[in-house]
Every structure is written in C-alpha cells, then in structure tokens.
C-alpha cells in the first residue's frame, strides 16, 4: 500500500480492478456450488471437444452380436439396441448439446446486443418499433415455432441451431436494452465524457463493466435453455437425425426399453441433468455476485 500511494495512476487502476471484476469474482468464488458448477462445465466442455479423440468406439459402430449389454470393461456404460457403445454416444451427444447450446447463445448474444443497444441508445421511434417486434416474437409459441423451422430446414444440427436461436434472442435484447437505459440515465458516462474520456474508453471502462452482470447471467441461463430446446426437439422426434448422437434422442431410446434395460436411459439422462444443474449453479452464483434481480 505504501508503495502505491506515490503512484496515483497504478493505485486507481488497482482500485478499479478490485472494485468491479475482482470483487465480483471474489464473491463468486466463495460460493462452493457455483465453483463446482464451473468445474463441471469445464470438464463437460472438454469432454465434448475431445469426443472424437477419447470416445472408445465410433458412435455409429454397431455390433449385432453384442446388443443391450450391461456395463462392462469393454463398454463402460453398456451397449444399445444396435450394439453401439453408450459411452461413446453420450460423449458425442454432449458435443451436439454443446454446439447448439453455445452456438445458439452466440447468435442470440449478437442479435440481442445489437438490437437491444440500438433500441436503448436511439430511443423514440426506433426503440418503439424494435420493442414491438420483440413483444410479438415474445408472444410466439416459441417451441412450436422451432418445430416448424426444423420441419422446414431439415433435421441437421445447423437447422436445429437456427430453430433454437430464432425466438430466444428477444430475451437478450430486452436485457441489453434495459441495461443501456439504466446506464444512460445514471450520469457517470456523461461525467466521464465531460472529464475528457473518449467514447471507446467510456465504453470499455464504464459501460462494459456495469452492464456485464445481467448479460453474463442471461448467457449462463440461456445456454442450458438452448440445450433443453435442442434435446426437446429430439424428444418429440424432430431433432438432429440419427445416427448423429444426441442426448434427447438417447433418452427417448432408453425410455422405449425402460423396463428391460433401464441403464440405457440413466446414462444420458444423468449426464444431461448434471450439465443443466451445473449451468444453473453458475448462473445463481453469478446472479448473487453481480447482485442482479433478474430471473429466467
């Protein structure tokens, strides 16, 4: 501390760091559930990325002399109705879930930030029009709309990604807009500009740190929501087409042989539930750390 008193510039920088992001991280890291969730997400994403390398068998390799096997050393989670290795399929299914979960969220974030910021910043007529559009998309039965889009675009992973993000960007646009409005009203941007800060500096130092929380929370809850829609499409038989593995589709396959081979259902359902829970824990942790009152 004594050293820094003589250097006001580094002191202010240290204080800024501490007062915004460090403080949030400190508060977040004291929440054991949130930390555990973050670790689980890291592991699952790593598994999804490495699926082609670490999966013990190709996901499509069937073996008709070894169908419906119980978990064993060769097949850690057993085999399914076509003798395919369940572990490999779960890993690849995790990959599909992550591609759609993160990919659709990226689309939503881009659209939502762009439109929300424009609406919030311009105000007036533009804001009015954009928000009416958002309201109408909000009134759409979004899952039905996703179903229709998938029927139109085909049952591949990119069609599913588009179908998932087509309606869910409106939530993000609302969050961003409300953030922009709050920041515009708060006056500290004006103060910063009055003291000679440039636009870029104002955005980087004040706008981003102050609007980060709610957006980060929305993203963390958005990813599992996308995964749910993606798997949900498979549950009703309209998702990613076989043989590409998908957790929702595996859950349905397991459900059809529920009484005879319950572990076929357990593996994908548990992995899916754990992934969703991890995101929820992190989201709750972030919400507490950033002190936002939003829920999704």
């Amino acid at each position, binding site marked *: 501390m004594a050293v820094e008193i003589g250097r006001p510039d580094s002191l202010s920088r240290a204080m800024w760091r501490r007062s915004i992001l460090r403080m949030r991280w400190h508060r977040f890291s004291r929440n054991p559930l949130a930390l555990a969730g973050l670790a689980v997400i890291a592991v699952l994403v790593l598994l999804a990325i490495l699926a082609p390398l670490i999966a013990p068998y190709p996901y499509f390799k069937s073996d008709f002399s070894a169908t419906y096997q119980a978990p064993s050393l060769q097949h850690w989670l057993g085999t399914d109705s076509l003798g395919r290795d369940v572990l490999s399929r779960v890993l690849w299914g995790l990959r599909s879930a992550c591609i759609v979960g993160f990919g659709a969220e990226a689309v939503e974030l881009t659209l939502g930030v762009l439109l929300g910021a424009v609406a919030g910043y311009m105000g007036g007529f533009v804001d009015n029009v954009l928000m009416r559009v958002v309201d*109408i998309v909000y*009134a759409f039965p979004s899952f039905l709309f996703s179903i229709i889009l998938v*029927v139109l675009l085909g049952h591949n992973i990119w069609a599913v990604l588009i179908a998932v993000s087509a309606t869910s960007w409106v939530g993000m646009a609302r969050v961003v807009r409300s953030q922009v409005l709050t920041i515009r009203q708060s006056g500290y941007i004006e103060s910063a500009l009055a003291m000679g800060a440039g636009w870029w500096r104002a955005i980087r130092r004040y706008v981003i740190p102050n609007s980060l929380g709610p957006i980060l929370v929305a993203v963390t809850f958005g990813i599992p929501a996308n995964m749910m829609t993606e798997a949900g499409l498979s549950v009703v*038989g309209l998702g990613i087409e076989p043989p590409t593995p998908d957790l929702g589709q595996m859950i349905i396959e397991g459900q059809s042989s*529920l*009484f005879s081979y319950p572990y076929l259902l357990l593996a994908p359902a548990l992995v899916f539930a754990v992934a969703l829970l991890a995101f929820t824990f992190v989201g709750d942790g972030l919400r507490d750390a950033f002190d936002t009152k939003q829920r999704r």
Partner: protein
Amino acid sequence: MFKYLIRRVLYIIVAFFVVSLVTFFLMKAAPGSFLQLNQYVGNIAAAATSMGLDNVVAQELAQEYHLHDPWYVQYWYYVWHFITFHMGYSFEFPNTDTMTLIRQTFPLSLGLAVTSIAVAMVLSIVFGTLAAVRENSWIDGSTMFVAMIGTAVPSYVVAVFLMLVFGVWFHLLPVLGYQGPQYFILPVLSLAIPMMGSMSRYMRNSLIESLHSEYIITVFAKGGSLWQAAFGHAMRNSLLPFVTVVGPHLAALMMGTVFIEQLFGLPGLAHVFTDAASTRDYPLIMDSTLLYSLVIMVMNLIVDLIYGVLDPRIRRSRYVQ
C-alpha cells in the same frame, strides 16, 4: 382499466395476424406443401387429359385449397376459416376436420396443464411456507435443494426419472397410455416439479421478507405465535407476488405438454401437433399453431388482469401509462 383492456386486446389481434402470416409463409415455403400443389395438380390434370379422362379430382383439389387464387386470397381463406371454425381437413385423418380433432384432443391438454399448475401452486405454497417458517433448518435446506434441481431440469428429464422410480423400480404407477385417473399422476408431477422449483423458492423468500417486516414484529410483540404471524398476516402479503411468478410459467407449460404427452403417450392436442409436424400434415400444423398462440396470448392477458385486480398499485400505474 377499460382502456388498458382494449389496448391489450388490439395488441393480441395484431400479434395473432403476425403469427398467422409467418406460419402461412413458412408453410408455403415448406417442401411438399399443399400450397405448392398447383404444380402437382397441373401434372394430374395433364395426365388425366392425356388418358382421355376428366380431371375432376385435380379441379376439386385446386378448388378446395384455392390454388388458382393469389397468395393473399389463400391467406385470407386460411385465417377466415380459422376464425369461423371451418377449418380444413387434415391429411392424416381425412374424415375428420381439424376442428373436430382439436375439440377431441384439446380438453386433455388443457386439463393436464391446469391440473399441473394447480398441483404446483399448492405444493409450493406448502413447501415454501414450511421452509420459510423453519428458516435455515433441514426442511429449508432440503426443500430449496430440490427446488434448485427443479428449476434446472426440464419436464421430460423429470418424467423419465419418475417413470424409472415409480414405474420400473416400485411398480406403483402406470407409465404409458391413458385409461384412468391414475395415468394422470406421473404426467402431472413431471410438469409440476419444474414449475415448483422457482415457485417454492419465491414463496419462501417473499414470506421470509414479510416475516422480518415491522408489522410482523408487532404481531410477536402482542404475543402472537410464529404460525399465527405466518398464516394470519405474512401470508396475505406474500401470495400476491407469488401470483406474478405463476404467469410466466403458463406459456412454458403449454410447451411442456408437448413433451409429456409424447413421453406418456397421452392423446392430447400437443401429441396431435407433433405427429402432424413429423408427417408434414400442413393444414393441421397451421391450425394448431394458431390455436396454441391464441391460447398463450389470452392466458397472458388473463394473468395480467388478475394482477391488476389483486394489486391496486399495478392498476394505477397502467392507468398513468
């Protein structure tokens, strides 16, 4: 209030037309859509003439789907027939028109949704109150942990776990089909548990907030018991915000029935819709999409009106707007 109602209804009408336009154009663009049947009908007609037959069938098809008319006339017929309940015939079930099909299946979907929301409300009031009154006890901890899982996991995952536990391991309840009230228990629970997550959490938090407020301290000062304070005084102020968390669940609930009817093999409208989507039964898809969006929008309006009735402050703020 009246002005507000009118504005909302107008708004629903606008949204309804936008939804119908979007559905119409998506369906028109769809591969093999009946609105493109023009060319097929043309082929049939050509084939018929070349064989020296009357092309009656082709003409009838063209007439039924208004294929010779421009798109806005086709669109108008689509909406008009929906509004006047003269919907067309589905491809899969050519002998029953869509309206009959909807009338046969919609009550089950609606009953499923209404029962689950009622169950979810009652259970989360009970558990939320227990957790709040015994704050930081094991009841509180375990209820909130289960609630957290409920918020994270979708209805279809809850459903398969319930099937596994109650159907396979304990053989207590049927898991497939619909032959009596006991076939309704697991579907209702699967829909109610994810809703209970946020609802019971909200109930607990708002009740705790009320219990720490000053008028409750007055109750204690006058010698009232904790239960008296909770049920006689705090509850009334917590139930109102509780109604506001129920609202957003309604739309999600209608979608939840899609999964649950599919998983449990219940013959509801959601099941009809997903079947229609996978068999590309376009007339049925179009009409049920409109019906669903209308139901969701009307439900949201009813919820907002109920808030207004319950809380004079909301009414006033709307009036100012």
